[in-house]
C-alpha cells in the first residue's frame, strides 16, 4: 500500500465530510492505542489540530498511566485540543442502577464502559457541533471484535477499510512513535485484556486470512498459501460471517414498499 496516497485520500475524506456537514470540527476518543492515535493524526492533518477535540476517558478499574502518556504524546505532536473525563463515577452509577448487574460478568461490564464512552463522545459532538470520528479498523470490524453501539458508534470511520497491520504502518508513516504503533492492541475493557489473546491469533496472520476471504478465496487455498492448518482459517471465517449482524442496521420485517436499512437506496447527505 502507498501510505502517502492512503493518507491523502483519508484526509480528503475527513475534510470534505466535516465541511459538507457544516460541522465545527471533530471529536474522537483518544485511548493511547494505535487506532485512535491514527485517526487523531489523520483528523489533525485533515482539518487542523485546533478543530479536533480528543477526549481521554479513563476509568479506575483499568487505569493505565502509560496509555494516558501515549495519548498525550499524540495530542502534543498533532496539536489536538484535549479533555480528560474520568468515567469511573458514571460507571459506578450504572453498576448500582442495574438490578441484575453482576460484577464478575466482565463482558457485559466491559460493554457498559465502551457504551459510556460513546455517550461522552456524542455529548461533546452535539454540544460543540462536531463530527464523531470512530477508530474501528477492518480486522476488528470483520471479526466483530467491538462493542455494538459502543466503540463502533461514530459518524465517520476513516480507517475501517484498513487492516490492523496496515494501520500500524500508516501510523508510523504519519509520524506516530513506533513504540506506540507496535504495542499490543487492547479494547481496555478489563485489566490485562489484549486483542490478540482474545482473538487467539496474531494480527499478522489474521489479516492475511481476512485478505484472502475478502477476495473470495477458498479456505483451503488460504491455508495452503499461508502454510497454516485449514481449521484456523475456518475458525476466522466462521467468526467473520457470524458477526454480520453487528455490522448492519437493526433488521426489520419487510412490510412496506421500501424499507429502512433494506431497499431505501438514498444518497447520504451530510447537511
Amino acid at each position, binding site marked *: 500500500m502507498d501510505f502517502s496516497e492512503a493518507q491523502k485520500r483519508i484526509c480528503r475524506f475527513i475534510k470534505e465530510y466535516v465541511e459538507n456537514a457544516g460541522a465545527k470540527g471533530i471529536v474522537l476518543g483518544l485511548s493511547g492505542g494505535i487506532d485512535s492515535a491514527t485517526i487523531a493524526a489523520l483528523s489533525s492533518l485533515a482539518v487542523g489540530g485546533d478543530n479536533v477535540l480528543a477526549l481521554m476517558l479513563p476509568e479506575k478499574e483499568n487505569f493505565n498511566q502509560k496509555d494516558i502518556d501515549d495519548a498525550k504524546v499524540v495530542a502534543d505532536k498533532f496539536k489536538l485540543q484535549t479533555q480528560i473525563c474520568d468515567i469511573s463515577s458514571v460507571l459506578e452509577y450504572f453498576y448500582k442502577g442495574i438490578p441484575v448487574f453482576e460484577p464478575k460478568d466482565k463482558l457485559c461490564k466491559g460493554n457498559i464502559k465502551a457504551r459510556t464512552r460513546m455517550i461522552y463522545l456524542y455529548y461533546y459532538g452535539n454540544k460543540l457541533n462536531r463530527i464523531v470520528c470512530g477508530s474501528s479498523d477492518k480486522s476488528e470490524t470483520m471479526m466483530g471484535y467491538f462493542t455494538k453501539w459502543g466503540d463502533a458508534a461514530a459518524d465517520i470511520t476513516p480507517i475501517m477499510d484498513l487492516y490492523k497491520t496496515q494501520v500500524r504502518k500508516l501510523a508510523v508513516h504519519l509520524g506516530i512513535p513506533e513504540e506506540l504503533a507496535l504495542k499490543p492492541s487492547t479494547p481496555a475493557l478489563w485489566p490485562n485484556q489484549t486483542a490478540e489473546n482474545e482473538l487467539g491469533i496474531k494480527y499478522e496472520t489474521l489479516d492475511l486470512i481476512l485478505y484472502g476471504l475478502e477476495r*473470495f478465496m*477458498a479456505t483451503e487455498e488460504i491455508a495452503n498459501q499461508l502454510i497454516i492448518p485449514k481449521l484456523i482459517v475456518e475458525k476466522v471465517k466462521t467468526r467473520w460471517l457470524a458477526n454480520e449482524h453487528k455490522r448492519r442496521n437493526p*433488521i*426489520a*420485517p*419487510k*412490510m*412496506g*414498499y*421500501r*424499507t429502512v436499512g*433494506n*431497499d431505501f437506496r438514498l444518497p447520504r447527505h451530510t447537511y
Partner: protein
Amino acid sequence: MILGSQDIRIESGNDMKDKIKLALAQISSKRENKEANLQKIEALTFKAKEQGADLAIFPEMSLTGYVVRDQFYELAETIPGPTVERVEALAKKTGMHVIFGMPELSEKTRATVFNTAVFVGPEGLIGKYRKMYLPTHSVFEEKRYFRPGYQTAAFQTDLGNIGLCICYDLFFPEVLRLIRLKGAQLIVCISASPSVRRSYFEILTCARALENTAYLAYVNLAGVEDGLQFWGGSRLVSPTGDVLAKAKYDEEDFVTCEVDYSDLRTAETFIPTLRDLRPELFDKLKEYSERL
C-alpha cells in the same frame, strides 16, 4: 454420461401418463447449509413417493436459501456436480422425478453463476433452466450475482412435456408463451417470492396458466431469510386458471395434487388462445420493445 450446458436427456415419453401426481414441497431452506437442505429434499422426495407422487418440486434456490448474497460464489456448483449427482441417486432410488433450484457455476469459468432450476428423473439429469429475468430492484440484487439464461426450457419426459421457469419470469408473458409453444403441457415455476408481492403472483399464476391453456405448478419458499419473509402459497393452477390445490401461506407445507392432461383439450377448445395466436404481432413486439 456428461451433459453439456445446453444438452438434455430426452425421456422417450412412450409410456407417458394421462394423469400425474405432483408434490409441491414448500420448504424453508436453511441458508448456506446445502447438506441440511439436501436432507430435506431427500426426506420429502421419499414422502412424495409414499403418497404416490411422480414429481416432487422444490422452490427457487432451495439448495442454499435465497438471501445468501456474496456466499453464492462459494455455494454454486456445476451441473452435473456433487449435488445433482446426489439428487440423481435419489431419483433413481425412488423412481421419482425431482425439480429444485440452486446456484449453478459455469463449467467454463470460475465465477460465472446462474440462478438455475434442475430437472432430474429416474434415469438421470433431464435438463436445467437458467433464469432469464433476474430482478434487480427493490430488495432484489440478482444481476449483481447471476448471468441471465438465454434459453427457455421444455422437456419431453415420461410425465409429459414439462417446461421450467423461475419466479420473476412470470411477469413476462412471452417466456411462458414460448415454453408453451415448445410443447409444454405443464409449466413449473419455482420461486422465492417475498410476502409484499403475494397478490401479484396470485394473479400472474392464474393468468399465465389461462392465457396458455396449460397447467402451472408454482412452488414458493416459506420462512424468513434476513428479514425477507417468503409467503409460500404454492399451488397448482388448471389450464382454465382455477386453483386446484394450494399450500399454506408463510409456513412450510407439503401438498400433493393431480394433473390430468385430458383437461387440456377441453380448455383449448373453450378458450382457444393458441388457435387464435397472431404471429405477426410478435414481430411488432420486438420492433417496439427495442424502441422503449
